[in-house]
């Protein structure tokens, strides 16, 4: 029974990692942009929510709702004016520019908020739990997982049932031809990053409510997110969820054996999957 419990906790943790990863997967899938600042953007969003909660005295969920359009705007501007310049056949410019951005965000947050760890409080919800058969499951982890599934369903619907999604797919397949059909790839990319930042806001909400955060934790979240995306396969959002769950279960299993092995077990699972499937479990695009 204790193992079943561990695995359920792992799956729910995987939901959090899938949330970290969904925005990354979207951007990666559409424009092959590797955003090394993704983890720091999540932390930045968590601080924005924290500021709203502290200043206006509102609930973190409401604060996240207010933050989302702001972060959409930030993402749009960032893509339009900085990241679009880095796109091309050479992978070095996007890697280095987002790496620089990561350092800049971390240190700007350190300067603004100090290195103290912070937390978003959601009151009684934090400790509430539900009895699912013989297992007790925390309400917040469950909410996180359901949000991850909802985000992925939503993104998939956006991708495959709207004209914006069609433009996303067309630009992803062939930006030049898409632009002949009246699509502006620059705008499409900016919109995609904006949407990714809305997902980042949701990820930040759960990051901040479930554990402490400080300005320096971004890169570790980035690694988990990337592992989920790569395990899942390029461009497959459900694959990203599967990847998140694999990392989450590996981490909780590792921690159950020895608490010091938690993070290590997740990384080892990533290496093992990639040794057998170098392009991930469910690769959509040939790249």
């Amino acid at each position: 029974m204790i193992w079943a419990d561990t695995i359920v906790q792992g799956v729910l943790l995987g939901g959090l990692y899938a949330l970290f990863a969904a925005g990354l997967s979207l951007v990666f899938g559409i424009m092959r942009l590797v955003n090394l600042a993704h983890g720091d953007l999540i932390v930045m969003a968590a601080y924005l929510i924290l500021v709203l909660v502290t200043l206006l005295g509102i609930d973190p969920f409401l604060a996240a709702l207010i933050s989302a359009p702001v972060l959409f705007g930030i993402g749009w501007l960032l893509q339009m004016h900085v990241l679009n310049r880095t796109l091309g056949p050479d992978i070095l410019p996007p890697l280095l520019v987002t790496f620089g951005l990561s350092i800049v965000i971390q240190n700007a947050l350190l300067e603004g908020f100090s290195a103290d760890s912070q937390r978003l409080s959601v009151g009684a919800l934090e400790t509430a739990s539900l009895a699912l058969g013989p297992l007790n499951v925390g309400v917040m982890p469950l909410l996180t997982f359901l949000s991850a599934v909802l985000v992925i369903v939503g993104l998939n619907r956006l991708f495959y049932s709207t004209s914006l999604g069609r433009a996303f797919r067309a630009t992803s397949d062939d930006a030049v031809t898409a632009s002949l059909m009246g699509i502006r790839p620059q705008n499409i990319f900016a919109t995609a990053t904006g949407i990714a930042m809305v997902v980042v806001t949701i990820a930040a909400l759960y990051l901040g409510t479930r554990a402490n955060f400080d300005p320096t934790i971004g890169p570790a979240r980035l690694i988990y997110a990337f592992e989920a995306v790569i395990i899942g396969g390029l461009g497959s959002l459900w694959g990203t969820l599967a990847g998140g769950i694999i990392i989450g279960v590996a981490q909780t299993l590792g921690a159950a054996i020895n608490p010091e092995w938690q993070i290590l077990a997740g990384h080892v699972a990533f290496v093992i999957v990639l040794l057998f499937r170098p392009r991930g479990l469910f690769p959509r695009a040939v790249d």
Partner: protein
Amino acid sequence: MTTSTQTARTAWSVETRTRTSTLFLGLAALLVIVLAFAPFYASRSLIQDLFFILTMLVLAQGWNLLAGYAGLVSVGQQAFVGIGAYAMFGGVILLDLDPLVSILLGGSAAALLAIPTAFFTFRLQGAYFAIGTWVVAEIVRLTVAQWKALGGGTGTSLPRSATRDMFGLDFLKDTFGFKTSVATDVITFWLALILAVVTVGVVYRLLRSRQGLGLAAVRDNQNAARSVGVDAQRLKTIVYLSTAFITGLAGALIYVQKARISPDAAFSVLDWTAYVIFIVVIGGIGTIEGPIIGVLIFFALQNSLSGYGSWYLLVLGLLGIVIMLFAPRGLWGLFTDRTGIELFPIRRRLSGGSTEKPGG
């Protein structure tokens, strides 16, 4: 034209050297000699600064060779710095070796680690490769943190007895009257100078060789290079393993001087990869001069902004972004474009032959 062979009165030859570069080579040799005597006229803090600059230069040349020439954008070089440093500590503490011998052990350990790492990461393309190397570095860091004999997660110090008996220390103390602490700094400084000169020399030789030409071809167009018989995979593996060796040596040397180690410091992505990347990008990626310029700018920035805490890193990050966006070939690239000066030319050019038109 059939007459073209007749008009070539003097033989053509392919050269990479220019007059400027030969002159510069002489100046560089002079500079190295002046630096080698630094312990006799410079203050101890200047020697320590020079040690820092030289070791960062070695790391930067290594990363530049990987990313700028072999197209291997690694974000996991801290794995080799850390394992080199830890192997050196292991050699001293567990095997009772001399620290200087242990430095070689550090380099070898890093090269050994690079074999399974390459096996795993070379299956990944482009950005996946970058993330793969980072994950490997994290795995090594977390594993080393379990190594209780070397202090586990909190780390350990080099025993004083080991550093006191270091090879050459007594000779320096007796001959020049240095104190023990100064003599340690002097030995590590000389080793850093040798390592830096050898690294630059080896990289320059490699780039001017057949293999270097193959490497440039692979970087510019892998398929075209393979179609003319360049074994891209083999070249990349050689570059990856040798860079790991050099990086491990540098890591071990840095920690002989620091004498105190912990997994978080020895495997720091910021110290051993982020800084190094900024040095190479700011100076100019894909050139040997770039990392040299970059490390000097990096040092100047660090010294002038160190009082401002995190503002320093903020400025460094912004500078990196601006240069990558607007001058992707770095400051040295800007300079070369204006002046045409290359201090370590690797471009092959024809010289010596007659340029008269046939039948003239």
